[in-house]
């Protein structure tokens, strides 16, 4: 089976402004390659500054890669073509409270991507918004609410609704579960798993909670200083970490795993 998303030798480096002769470059991400199938989840873990957020930005098109390319269904995605990319690769951010525009109702929020990317008329758009809200476990009446009227868990669901409304194939979760309360977090995990089964989504999960990574992902990738130190099946890596960095990361959380 051909991979849904193929990343080939993707890298990012920044030029520091300097004199002509002593221009320095900072490498945020060394070239890396991976691929994801539909219905699968890839988890990316690493410390701050390890390049995991840079990778997310490159995939979603917010940054232009220095080298390499991203292929979706065998088709290379152009770095400047947002219209093509944003329909297929969507992102959910860590803090849903600040990523929703407070001056728009939920209906307007969800309407925007539809207006920009589809040719649906108004009635069809409304219908689609209602369906999507129900899919993420909200009510149709919530359409006319403003973001401040929702709790943190519900806001995260709205972000999810905004991500899935264009029927994407890949969703990137950038620490999307970290700021939620435990009981809401497990609700959200269940919802994401259900949607994955229904829609055949591929998730890229950026997280530092190894419990969630173990439960949620099929493959995982460990990043350190912009380099891939380990990449493979989640169960294999968590059971037998080979690299020192991975071992350290697991050790720092392992006591909690062993406690019971």
């Amino acid at each position, binding site marked *: 089976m051909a991979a849904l998303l193929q990343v080939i030798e993707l890298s990012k480096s920044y030029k520091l402004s300097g004199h002509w002769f002593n221009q320095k470059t900072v490498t945020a991400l060394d070239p890396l390659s991976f691929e994801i199938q539909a219905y699968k989840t890839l988890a990316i873990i690493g*410390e*701050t500054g390890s390049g995991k957020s840079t990778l997310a930005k490159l995939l979603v098109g917010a940054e232009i890669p220095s080298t390499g390319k991203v292929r979706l269904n065998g088709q290379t995605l152009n770095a400047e073509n947002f219209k093509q990319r944003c329909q297929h690769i969507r992102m959910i951010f860590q803090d849903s409270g600040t990523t929703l525009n407070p001056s728009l109702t939920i209906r307007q929020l969800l309407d925007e991507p539809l207006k920009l990317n589809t040719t649906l008329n108004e009635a069809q758009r409304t219908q689609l918004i209602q369906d999507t809200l129900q899919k993420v476990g909200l009510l149709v009446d919530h359409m006319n609410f403003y973001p401040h009227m929702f*709790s*943190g*868990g*519900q806001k995260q669901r709205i972000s999810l609704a905004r991500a899935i409304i264009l029927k994407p194939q890949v969703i990137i979760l950038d620490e999307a579960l970290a700021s939620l*309360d*435990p*009981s*809401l*977090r*497990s*609700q959200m*995990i*269940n919802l994401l*798993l259900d949607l994955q089964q229904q829609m055949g989504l591929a998730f890229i999960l950026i997280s*530092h*909670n*190894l*419990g*969630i990574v*173990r*439960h*949620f*992902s*099929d493959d995982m990738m460990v990043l350190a200083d912009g380099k891939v130190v380990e990449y493979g099946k*989640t*169960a294999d890596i968590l059971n037998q970490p080979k690299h020192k960095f991975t071992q*350290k*990361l697991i050790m*720092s*959380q392992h*006591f*909690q*795993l062993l*406690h*019971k």
Partner: protein
Amino acid sequence: MNLLDIRNLSIELHSSHNSILAVDRVSLSMKEGEVRGLVGESGSGKSLLAQAIIGVLDDRWHVHADRFHWRGRDLLRLTPEERKVVISQDVAMIFQEPMACLDPTASIGEQLEEAVNSEQLSGYFWQKSQQRKIAATKLLHKVGIKNHELCIRSYPHQLTEALCQRVMIAMALAKKPLLLIADEPTAAMENSNQGQIFRLLASLNQLKNMSILLISHDLENVTHWTDTITVMYSGQFVEAGTTKQIFTKPYHPYTRALLDSSPKANIELPAKSRLMTLPGSIPILQHLPIGCRLGPRCPRAQQECVQAPKVKNFHGHQVSCHFSLRDNY
């Protein structure tokens, strides 16, 4: 003797129309040298409770309690000034987001020297500034910062978050407190840094016999570091007991659900299976259910649950539920 003994503490918010019971009859006791975890999701009133202990709630909040003793002294009978003296002598608090709590315009050294208790300094006035500097350096050594010269000169934004939290702990230690209240000390911190901070707190507890009240929203993060745990939900007392009791045999359906919903605690759970969850979301303060506030979400709720349950005590394992899971084990 109990260090801190609180019985049925309620915190009420009076507004023009109505009053809201934000914390409803919560009991908490701390022994000397104990590490107690206070666990609750957002809106459970755990931070309010900590602020009530410190006494920094403003006038809109009204605190009542059947008993509110600090080392045998009734705090509710003291005037605010007397109370401040008693509390500031023995209790210290550290907050989440240490970078936001430190003064960005002053260097770490200045802030630490400010925190040093001048009564501990001996000597003439011209010697005091030198002694203050030495005391600040010693405090930094206590929290495991070896490169004290660089640290004293730097400003909060130049340090990492874990270092800032260490500095906060150093400031809290300046008065040699008997009780340290840590309000989510590792929220928004990297995992490896979390471990560092918890290890530091554990070693302070061991070496100085300092009691620690560790507040957290996540049960799975604190279980390794605490002796006893108190669980709260939406301002109500849920369950208290030793960490082992809570973790292996939770009596309350809410604690059970918290443990079941944690993928870390259930290592045997097959990957990608559904997690156990409570339906619904945490009620907001304006619309609290009557009786047991977990009622609408609870899998075991029955008619009696509209009445708030009394706290039952089984060999030190306290639970507040009409239909506790005790008989299931």
